[in-house]
């Protein structure tokens, strides 16, 4: 597991900002002077080049070798994974940093807000009600710092569409600054039940934009229970329909746990009859973070025990011509017959393996586990391949 945020040892900022400082990092020793004034330098050796806005150091001696009036952060060893092109934010109180973007990662995901109108039983990012619209300001800046060749970028929350205008503005900025970057938004889709909002979204005419929308059951009551919001199912379906009328790309996401497994196959049939036009269906393993840990007793289901339902659901969907993927599951707990849908999917920074897997011959094919899973709860039926 990679550390993406946390306390620093020491920060000195010459011109601190009210809301924190955002820097795009580089380790290019001979970067032209004109390009140094806004950037952060990864100082791994003594006497780093002059002129940078902020220096990120891992060693005291390097700090001492800096010019007199330099701004710097002294970081613990866990942040040594940082590299050229990464973007970090130094907190306003100068005590912590957060990695906002990792160039070498395939799965960069940007949080737009912690506010949400759902309260999912298994939420890995439990909602917070306070106004955090300053995050939009930061993200607007972040987009200008992300390398243009970035293949894909995700936006999550909370519920990103709660601030409708700010959300749309972010997407427009992505189209301008990152025209060849595929954008993947995670949303409960309810805002799209408003045709005007969907029109405005479609009008952005982004070249490669998809929204991933969770649907947890074909039974509206069960879905509403899982997301803890009355009327959610109905609005979500309307949102999906509106998006499709406007020719936008839609993915349906299902998190698999004790509340969603019993009607998983009926849900697959529901999707194949009513939402045949969706661009992708993602069947996802449970992440053991946030509310999922608190609700483990109503949520936990061993993937080994639900492999039949999972296989059947995959068959139903793929036979109807829908693209389907299995995410976040150990490979050994999937029926061979549905391996074609299996993806190595866990974000590198969250990925780990328990000790049972140390001798497994197919480790490199396996998506692994959430670090949170290894820590708190994982299947008792792991079967390493020989």
């Amino acid at each position: 597991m990679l550390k993406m945020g946390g306390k620093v040892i020491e920060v000195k900022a010459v011109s601190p900002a009210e809301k924190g400082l955002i820097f795009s990092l580089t380790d290019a020793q001979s970067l032209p002077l004109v390009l140094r004034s806004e950037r952060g330098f990864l100082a791994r050796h003594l006497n780093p080049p002059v002129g940078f806005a902020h220096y990120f150091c891992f060693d005291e001696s390097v700090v001492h070798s800096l010019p007199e009036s330099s701004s710097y952060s002294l970081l613990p060893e866990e942040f040594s994974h940082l590299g050229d092109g990464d973007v970090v934010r130094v907190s306003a109180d100068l005590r912590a940093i957060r990695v906002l973007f990792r160039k070498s990662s395939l799965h960069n995901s940007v949080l737009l807000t912690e506010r949400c109108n759902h309260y999912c039983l298994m939420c890995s990012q439990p909602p917070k009600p306070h106004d955090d619209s300053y995050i939009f300001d930061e993200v607007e800046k972040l987009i200008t710092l992300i390398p243009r060749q970035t293949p894909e970028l995700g936006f999550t929350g909370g519920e990103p569409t709660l601030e409708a205008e700010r959300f749309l503005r972010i997407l427009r900025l992505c189209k301008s600054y990152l025209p060849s970057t595929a954008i993947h938004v995670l949303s409960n889709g309810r805002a799209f039940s408003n045709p005007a909002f969907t029109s405005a979204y479609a009008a952005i005419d982004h070249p490669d934009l998809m929204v991933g929308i969770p649907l947890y059951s074909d039974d509206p009551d069960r879905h509403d229970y899982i997301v803890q919001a009355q009327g959610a199912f109905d609005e979500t379906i309307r949102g999906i329909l509106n998006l499709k009328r406007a020719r936008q790309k839609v993915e349906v996401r299902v998190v698999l746990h004790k509340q969603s497994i019993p009607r998983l196959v009926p849900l697959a049939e529901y999707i194949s009859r009513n939402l045949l036009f969706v661009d992708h269906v993602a069947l996802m393993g449970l992440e053991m973070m946030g509310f999922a840990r608190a609700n483990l007793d109503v949520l936990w289901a061993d993937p080994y025990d639900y492999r039949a339902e999972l296989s059947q659901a995959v068959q139903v969907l793929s036979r109807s011509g829908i693209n389907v993927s299995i995410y976040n599951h150990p490979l050994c707990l999937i029926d061979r017959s549905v391996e074609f849908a299996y993806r190595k999917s866990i974000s590198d920074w969250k990925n780990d393996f328990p000790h049972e897997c140390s001798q497994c011959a197919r480790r490199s094919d396996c998506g692994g586990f959430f670090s949170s899973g290894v820590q708190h709860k994982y299947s008792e039926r792991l079967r390493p391949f020989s």
Partner: protein
Amino acid sequence: MRTERLEFSSQAYSIEAAQKAAYRGLDKFTVHISTHEGSLVCELSLNLGVSEEQLPLLVQEFKKDILDESLREKIGAATSDVRNLILGIAFSRTNLSG
């Protein structure tokens, strides 16, 4: 030729239900339908070439069919408006497919 006479309450069953049930069985028998003092009377006659042994079973099936036709009437009454509504939506919109 054996004829089986069945009586049904006109309150509970409509002539239409009897007619439709009779229609379903016309491969094996014909039914003469009439009313008599508040009752619906159905006289079942086996078609030529159909053996008498089959009669009890055919009568049973006819009775089930008349019940089913009554049920169909109820469903039809309850859903004909919404059916027209759905068909109206189906064929009035443009650009529904994504």
